[in-house]
């Protein structure tokens, strides 16, 4: 945490290399969120890059009392929600598109496991794709980033009650989709 604070201080002085360290430290959670939200690796990278560029531009507004990663994820989730709303529809699943090459797994999978994992990834994208943007963001922050209701509410600028409701409805929609598939 002290190291992170030092990098932030240096980045505020205009040290791009220090900001680069922050990018390396948090590229995975940010990219994971954009990938889960947008469903396409090229779009996800573009959105993740945009998140870091915006964070750099408004680094002076970051409040040290808040977790830096949560602040980044807030920028990322708002950006992805805006992108999805501008598109006017949920994104098409690019099931044949390139998958991101880095998955955080602790073991080396066997070939049959690789097929199963690919199928699981497709199912995950399928169930996420039925959700409206703000429901999707709440689900991603809960399941992949382990945030509490309060943290999700703060990240998405809403109330805990709204998050409870979104997760509840999202789960029902995803359950129906999984059963139908």
């Amino acid at each position, binding site marked *: 945490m002290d190291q992170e604070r030092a990098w932030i201080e240096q980045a505020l002085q205009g040290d791009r290399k220090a900001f680069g360290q922050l990018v390396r430290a948090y590229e995975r959670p940010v990219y994971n969120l954009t990938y889960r939200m947008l469903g396409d690796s090229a779009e996800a990278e573009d959105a993740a890059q945009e998140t870091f560029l915006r964070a750099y531009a408004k680094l002076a507004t970051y409040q040290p009392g808040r977790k830096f990663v949560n602040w980044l994820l807030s920028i990322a989730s708002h950006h992805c929600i805006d992108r999805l709303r501008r598109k006017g529809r949920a994104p098409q699943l690019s099931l044949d598109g*390139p998958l991101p090459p880095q998955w955080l797994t602790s073991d080396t999978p066997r070939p049959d496991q690789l097929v199963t994992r690919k199928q699981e*990834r497709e199912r995950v994208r399928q169930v996420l794709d039925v959700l409206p943007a703000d429901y999707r963001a709440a689900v991603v922050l809960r399941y992949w980033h382990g945030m509490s209701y309060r943290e999700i509410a703060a990240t998405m600028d809403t109330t805990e009650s709204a998050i409870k409701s979104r997760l509840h409805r999202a789960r029902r929609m995803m359950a129906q989709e999984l059963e139908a598939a």
Partner: protein
Amino acid sequence: MEEMIERKHDEEMTMLMSLALDEMLGDEERQRLEQHLHACPACRAEWQAMQAVSALLADSPMAGPPLGFAVRVERKLVEKDRKRRQTFGGLAVLTSSLSLAGLTVAVLCLVVVAILTWQGIGPLSSLQEETSAVSQVATGMGLMGKGASLFLGDMLLRYGSLLIFALGFGIVLLGGLWAWLFLRRPRNHQHNGYV
């Protein structure tokens, strides 16, 4: 009415299911949910489906960006900074050029009016005959015009071609500087190159 009550009850039960998945239920609520699940096959099925979804998502690993992501972000930051400096630099040149141009035009207008006044042309020339403060200014303008006219005439005779060359060179230099600042495109980098 009964249907509405039933729907509300189902909604309440599925909300309890969702809270249970997040381990947010108190003992009393958990008991109520378990009792209901024993009695309601439809809710039991929904509970199992929600558990299946939850397990699917919980087992899904975190996705990471393609290799070289941080390098590409740093490159974009550098480019953004360069463009910002370029824009501000261009604005500074534009502002100072416009100021200089404005000043030059003002001086030229003053000289032209002065020469015309000396020649007896224009609104100020008629004021020279009066004795008010304005007429004093007009007279001064006329004298200045005379001086400027004689000076310019002398300069043109002695250094005419050099002056025209210097003026032309200055215009070309300024035009070139503007073109370099505003029209040049950045070199194409390999953006978003997947390793």
